[in-house]
């Protein structure tokens, strides 16, 4: 079996008396969509924060491509090729898609122009368009502010940005939660395309049909620990709901 690109062993994190993560194991493989599901308060967000460098853990080991490492900030995760699309997307509404795509990672002009802070706008625009086209993202305009676009378009831009910079792992925190039918279909299609590029996708969702449709592997969290890690083909929605609520159990693979 291949080495997981990102792996967690025995992660624990307590907030006061609440054990948000309780000895959690987790692994994602390249070129696969791993769904992370669980009821509210199961520890999904905490786990993602820990794995994307947004939160320190009390105990446990995080391994990147088999090597243990300390993730202390999101920039470190970015440098490794790990990106997160948060539920609030974190786009600057007044900036256009290209500016959002490259914010904090601008391509500067070569030579003296770059030294004075001038950016290579043409290259950033070309690359952004390529990135949007590659994902089939329908972006209305590359020069309009993101804030004037629909939720689906903003979601597409946020995902395209994450994928553009991530070459290893992308975390998507409920990317379909606020979307209509067609936009949801676009996002699921986008997830498949990202996976086909060989990137590991972690898909957090409350929607069991979406999870069944798009994921290769499902990890179920319950009360801060992993209730199950299963192959999507071997399960069904009833079992998943049972695992999330604790009504049924299954050996951790």
């Amino acid at each position: 079996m291949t080495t997981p690109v990102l792996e967690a062993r025995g992660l624990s994190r307590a907030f006061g008396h609440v054990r948000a993560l309780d000895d959690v194991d987790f692994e994602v493989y390249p070129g696969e969509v791993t769904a992370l599901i669980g009821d509210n308060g199961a520890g999904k967000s905490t786990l993602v924060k820990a794995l994307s460098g947004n939160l320190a853990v009390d105990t446990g080991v995080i391994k990147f491509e088999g090597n243990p490492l300390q993730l202390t900030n999101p920039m470190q995760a970015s440098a490794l090729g790990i990106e997160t699309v948060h539920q609030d997307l974190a786009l600057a509404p007044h900036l256009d898609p290209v500016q959002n795509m490259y914010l904090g990672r601008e391509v500067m002009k070569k030579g003296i122009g770059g030294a004075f802070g001038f950016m290579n706008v043409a290259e950033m625009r070309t690359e952004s368009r390529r990135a949007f086209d590659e994902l089939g993202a329908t972006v209305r305009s590359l020069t309009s502010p993101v804030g004037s676009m629909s939720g689906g378009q903003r979601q597409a831009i946020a995902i395209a940005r994450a994928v553009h910079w991530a070459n290893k792992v992308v975390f998507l925190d409920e990317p379909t939660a606020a979307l209509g039918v067609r936009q949801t279909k676009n996002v699921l299609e986008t997830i498949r395309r990202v996976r086909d590029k060989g990137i590991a996708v972690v898909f957090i969702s409350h929607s069991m049909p979406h999870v069944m449709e798009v994921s290769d592997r499902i990890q179920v969290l319950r009360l801060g620990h992993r209730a199950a890690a299963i192959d999507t083909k071997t399960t069904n929605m009833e079992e998943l709901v049972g695992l999330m609520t604790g009504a049924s159990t299954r050996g951790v693979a």
Partner: protein
Amino acid sequence: MTDDVRDADLKKAEFGQTDAAGPETTSINMAQSKETALTRLLKAQAFQILIVLIVIVAIFSALAPDTFAQLSNLRLVVQNASILAVLGVGMTFIIITSGIDLSIGSVLVFSGVVSAIVMRAMGGDDWGTATVGIIVSILSGLAWGIFNGLLISKAKVPPLIVTLGSLGMALGLSQIITGGVDIRDVPSVLTNSIGYGNIFGGIPIISVVALVIVIIGAIVLHKTKFGLYTYAVGSSEEAARRVGVKVDRHLIKVYALSGALAGLAGILSLSQFSTTAIAGQSQTNLNVIAAVVIGGTSLFGGYGTIFGTVVGLFIPAVLQNGFVITGVQPFWQQVAVGAVLIAAVYVDQVRRASAARGASTSLWRHFARRNNK
């Protein structure tokens, strides 16, 4: 037809969409061709306010062709607006970050006072002394700007309060240093050149200085990473921080920039008026803020242009000049500027509201739709 379908159809009709899959699936290339540089220009509030300015100029020119519409009068208006233009550049950056700087008038005075004292102590009337004076003035302003920026970004005190505090502190310290008496010893090399000297056959040097600052400011704001980060911080501090923009450091830089420009304005004012004019800048901050806002920069951050600020400066300046020339009581200028200011913020509100709905941000269309109802 079920109720749901009918509702959907009604909605479609309401939003003027013939096809539900319209905007969502429009390809990039199609959208690009629709959005020419011209339509963007027409949409910009700075352009709309420029039309207002042109109308005002046209009215006064028609009323007083022999006095108002003269090159010498234009020159006077430009000269009077120069110091405010220097301050306006810094203020535009600050308001785009959704901040405010009330202290610029006092910092201007403080920088002028410190600079005048240093130059008086040196005693010379040559460019060596003047150069030291210029540097001292800019550094004094810079120090106040860094002070403001540190308190705002690191101590998290709201900009309104920090700069209200430094407004009082800078003015009070100026009065303490001078004992409340204006210093009138300004090297004549400064007053003869920057003060009321001309170059290129009649263009005031002070206006050339202001123009250079405006052009550099516009390039930095619209073309460089520094400018992009200024918009990003004002648009969404959280979004900027998440992608690794050093928000605190950027805010300090922006307030430092505004302070340094207030310092530069201090030496310009000293040269123009040959006095520290301690009591003369109490309205400066509000005049500059009004100009920036009239020029279309949003007080909520994330949006604005230097060009708009320059146009926004000339509306009060032209009104004042025009009223004096046409014999209207100049007090009407304040009334008119107040009205323009409120109108400008109303326009900004309308645009933000329609942007939030994802609708067109064109003002013309907004008013057209109103009239059709």
